[in-house]
Every structure is written in C-alpha cells, then in structure tokens.
C-alpha cells in the first residue's frame, strides 16, 4: 500500500473489538481528525433485562455491502483518508462493542460527517442480525427502525 493511498479496513470477527486498534489503523501523519463511532450492547429493551446478545451475518455479502459504503464515502468526502469498520459476530457481552467505525481526514468536518453516514448506512444495508436473549421471555431478533 502506498503511503498516500487511502485504506479501507473491513473486519467481521468474533474477537473483542478495540477502539485503540481502530484508531491506530486509521491514523496518518497528514490527518488532523479521527472520528470514531462505537455501538455497544445495551442491558435492557422496553424494560426487559437483556442477558446476552448474538450477532449473525451473511458474511460475504456483508463484506461486499461494507465495501460499497467505503466507496460511497470516498465519493461524498474525497478528503477522507482511511476507513476502518469492525463488526463483532457471535456472542457479545453487555456493554462490549458490537461495531466500531473509525475514519480519518485532514479536517474534522469530513470524518465527522462520514462516520455518521457510515453507521446510518450500515444499519440500513448490511446483512447482519442481532438476537437479544432476555432474563425472562422469548429471545427476539431485532429490527433497525431508522
């Protein structure tokens, strides 16, 4: 990879995600801004206590949709340098990150806007599903509303 070339890093993994690792993977000497979004698993849904979450993906298509998002970001915000999108699969304990997005750019406006676009579009278009398992009651496959 040429030092000047923007890099797209897409990772679907059952390992724990790290904000530092994502931040480092998008750091570059000519960039003044890194924006990160971390989606974390919540302990409740409509008053029901969530004890565990599981994520499932249609992996090759999820990777392909994530690559489309990276490509769209580079069209909309050409100054964006590096993009890293990590999504965790399998069991994710409460409060741990299910997704981390990191985007670097010379000036902050671009990475801030791009990270917002990235998480909104990921939730709308990437074939990944979350199942919540409650303390009492049936497990439930969730649905992104927005």
């Amino acid at each position, binding site marked *: 990879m040429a030092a000047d070339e923007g890099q797209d890093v897409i990772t679907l993994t059952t390992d724990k995600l790290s904000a530092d690792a994502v931040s480092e993977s998008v750091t570059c000497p000519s960039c003044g801004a890194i924006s990160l979004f971390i989606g974390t698993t919540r302990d409740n849904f409509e008053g029901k206590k969530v004890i565990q979450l599981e994520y499932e993906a249609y992996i090759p*298509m999820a990777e392909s949709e994530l690559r489309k998002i990276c490509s769209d970001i580079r069209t909309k915000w050409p100054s964006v340098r590096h993009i890293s999108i990590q999504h965790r699969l399998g069991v994710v304990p409460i409060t741990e990150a299910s997704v981390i997005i990191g985007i670097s750019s010379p000036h902050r406006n671009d990475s801030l806007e791009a990270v917002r676009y990235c998480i909104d579009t990921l939730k*709308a278009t990437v*074939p*990944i*599903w979350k199942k919540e398992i409650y303390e009492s009651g049936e497990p439930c496959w*969730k649905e992104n509303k927005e």
Partner: protein
Amino acid sequence: MNTEVSVLYFAKSAELTGLKAENITVPSNITSLQLWQDLENRHPRLSVLRDQVVLAVRQEYVPLGAQLLTLRQGDEVAIIPPLSGG
C-alpha cells in the same frame, strides 16, 4: 427450464425453517414473489415474514415483486429478514 439454486436462511428465517441452507430446483425465469411463494409452500411458517422480507440473489438485494429473475445453476439466494446490525 429449471435450475438448482442454493437458498440461505438467516436469523428469524433460519429459526422458522430449521435450516441454514438448502438446494432447491426452481424455474430459471421466475419473479422474486413467485420464488418466495415457492419457499413458503415448502416452509409454511415463513409466511409470518412475508411483509418484511427481501431476497438477495447473487448477493444483491431484490424486493419481493414482479421483477423477473434469471437464475443460473448454483446461484445463491438468501432470505433477508429485517436487518439489525450495528
């Protein structure tokens, strides 16, 4: 003309069918809605998803409707319940 495709079930659809994947033989030229109806005939419990589901054919989304698919031997057809990634 018929062709054999590989159907992948995810999330709720995998629970309803009890399957992660199966090979089925269907007409090569079929609308996405006809294909879904064929799957519902095989797995009646899928009907609860009818108003929410889309298909992915060769990893591209296809809504249920009159769009004519051209299926080829070994094509991947995925059942895509509402997304909840992120």
